[in-house]
């Protein structure tokens, strides 16, 4: 399958993250799945007119385009002209290129939350009128329109995240390439077009701070070990991703790095309506509790568990290293042999 990768209004960080894949040979993994990289802005030899030859051949239908990966938001401004990003060497706005190439592709992937929803590039006053391929924030539409489908019949596949985990992209690409094993289709996408294998998970699952969460033993400042939900802005209980079971850069995740999950796979995460590192509260109760739990139950359970918090958990929550270690269970010693 021929794969073309283009970058627009983003930071290039999804490509950089992809190169962190814990494979021994990333390119061999892709070519083994039958994926042929036609052009990638950071990886390919072809530059200038050589690269344009590839793009023109895809555009004109002379070169089959199976998978089109777009990284970065689509910049419609100023005034609908797309001038904020002209594809170098072509005097044409990138949005025009992306619209045409998307019409040629069997599958179109939004790589990262910028390409999916607009993401960080659309934050604040959204200076460039940035949007995603098929979403403008949480609203269907975006550059290609709400009813758009690729030649395969699928909408844009939103591999959302800021950045993506390399595994999310690799698993999606290899699944598309191996239709005979797992015919990747509409049922594999969630309600926002994200691959369900990672988007049906919660960041909360596998979080090392879960014992602190259970007892509502909360961190109060950066570097504390406690749960980050009550005070530090963490949205891991609501965020759709498998970050704490599929770790980052070996053994990491945002929570393991000591900072809040900011829900970066979600449309609109860039404008949460509160400072990222503070949990907004009403009458002392954090808003944005787990989405599938009655609030009254949560509050009642929280009160109960706070009163039952072991000293170890309570004291460690506001320390940056374990002050109280788990007790060693007293036993009667080894049973004597008769």
């Amino acid at each position: 399958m021929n794969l073309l990768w283009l970058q627009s209004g983003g930071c290039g960080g999804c490509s950089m993250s992809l190169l962190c894949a814990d494979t021994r040979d990333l390119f061999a993994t892709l070519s083994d799945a039958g994926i042929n990289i036609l052009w990638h802005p950071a990886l390919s030899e072809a530059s200038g007119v050589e690269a344009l030859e590839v793009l023109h051949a895809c555009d004109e239908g002379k070169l089959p385009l199976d998978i089109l990966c777009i990284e970065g938001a689509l910049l419609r401004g100023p005034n609908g002209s797309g001038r904020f990003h002209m594809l170098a060497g072509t005097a044409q706005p990138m949005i025009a290129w992306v619209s045409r190439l998307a019409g040629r592709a069997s599958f179109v992937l939004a790589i990262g939350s910028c390409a999916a929803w607009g993401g960080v590039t659309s934050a604040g006053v959204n200076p460039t009128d940035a949007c995603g391929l098929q979403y403008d924030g949480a609203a269907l539409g975006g550059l290609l329109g709400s009813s758009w489908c690729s030649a395969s019949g699928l909408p844009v596949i939103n591999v959302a995240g800021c950045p993506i985990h390399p595994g999310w992209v690799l698993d999606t690409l290899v699944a598309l390439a191996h239709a005979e094993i797992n015919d990747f289709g509409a049922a594999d996408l969630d309600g926002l077009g994200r691959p369900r294998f990672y988007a049906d998970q919660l960041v909360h699952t596998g979080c090392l701070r879960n014992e602190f969460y259970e007892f509502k033993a909360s961190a109060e400042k950066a570097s504390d070990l406690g749960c980050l939900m009550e005070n530090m802005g963490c949205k891991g209980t609501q965020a759709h991703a498998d970050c704490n079971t599929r770790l980052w850069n070996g053994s990491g995740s945002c929570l393991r790095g000591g900072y809040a999950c900011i829900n970066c796979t979600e449309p609109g995460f860039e404008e949460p309506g509160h400072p990222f590192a503070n949990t907004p509260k009403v009458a002392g109760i954090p808003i944005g509790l787990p989405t599938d739990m009655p609030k009254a139950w949560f509050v009642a359970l929280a009160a109960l568990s706070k009163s039952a918090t072991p000293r170890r958990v309570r004291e460690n929550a506001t320390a940056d290293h374990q002050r109280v270690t788990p007790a060693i269970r007293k036993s009667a010693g080894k049973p004597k042999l008769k």
Partner: protein
Amino acid sequence: MTRLIVGPFNRVEGDLEVTLDIAAGAVTAAFVNASLYRGFEQILQGKTPLDALVFVPRICGICSVAQSSAAAQALADAMGLVPANNGRIAANLVLACENLADHLTHFYLFFMPDFARAAYRDRAWYSAAEERFKALNGSGIKAMLPARADFLHLMGLLAGKWPHTLALQPGGSSRALQAAEKIRLLMLLREFRSWLEKNLFGDLLENVAGLASRQALEDWRATQRAGDFRLFLEIAEDLQLEQLGRATDVFLSYGNFPQAEGVGRLFPAGVWDGKLHALDELAIVEDATCAWLNGGAALHPTQGLTLPLSDKAGAYSWCKAPRLAGRVVETGALARQLVAGQPLLRMLAAEQGGNVYARIVARMIEITRVLPEMERWLRELKPGAPFCFPGSLPEEAEGRGLVEAARGSLGHWLQIRHGRIQNYQIIAPTTWNFSPRDAAGTPGALEQALVGAPVGDKEATPLAVQHIVRSFDPCMVCTVH
């Protein structure tokens, strides 16, 4: 005279178009267009100051930590806060990890694949270059990627993830390393050292770091049988890369890696133009004459604003033109090492100025100098002692953060009014190196470096131009932001 427009210029981070005027087989003038505008400085206005830590790393996926680090320093400056010692060391380790990973990415993925082009098939070194550096296929590239990924496991331990960590805080680091994890980090660093010594240098890092003169480097090369750096030196000599890409020979470094209080930075700040000068931060201005941005007058970043003006007459880039006391400067690993007094690079620059060859040698030397420092810093971490001091932001404050990304000097200037960001100005390394012309019509560093580059009759994307452009390790997403 003919005019050539080169783009999309790939294997640079981000979007670049270069327009060349050509006469008698050489470039006579160059115009550099950073062709993507996103408006981070507009996005940041009105935000809660600490939210900058979420936004600024996302300016750039390859200088992400450098952007974090500059913001954390600007916020600490505004708070009047000195980070916890452990936090300072952890932040140094994280930034050094990014810088070295970027040097490796540049060498193997961005720069060297041009020597595996068919145009060089008659050269004696071609088959070796093709075997190691052919894009998407070379054995060197394939060996580098997992080594880089393993090295970046440091980020998993110290920063949660890379790119786009929130671990770097004004008061230090949100990730307190535990005692047992020091050992894991040490093994990780030693494994990376071993990879470098086997694949890139074919020698101990210290032996390369100690090369103090042109003669010493040539003698060293003559004894080498292996290593990708040796192959580069052979190619560079054959293609006379030292004759390509000389810019202004004024070099800027903000200095990097703060050491214990009162000791300064591992690589000090300064300006090198054959002599060492102190950095006068107040002499930095940005000129928007040739940028599709409002205004034009050269302003210090505390005075500057960024507002797009896409129909502006005479403009040809989204990039402003930074100048230091009116001078066009070059920044990057070469500048850092010249300011820091590395003797080999001082000698190379004295003889031939800044050029394609010297820029690559500087990155290689920097790798050999920084990794042993990382091993030393790790030993200085004291698990159990604080990693992060809390601070509070005044309602009205100003702050600045000056750091070195892999590709050069990165500055953030922050103004807080009524508890919100009133203005946030950023000058990135490639803003300096790839600036357009200023009000006086003086071209930027790359624009000057390209003049005289040879162009063959049938070359639509001239190879010499590509070598020169990529020798700066440009990051275009940072450039305009």
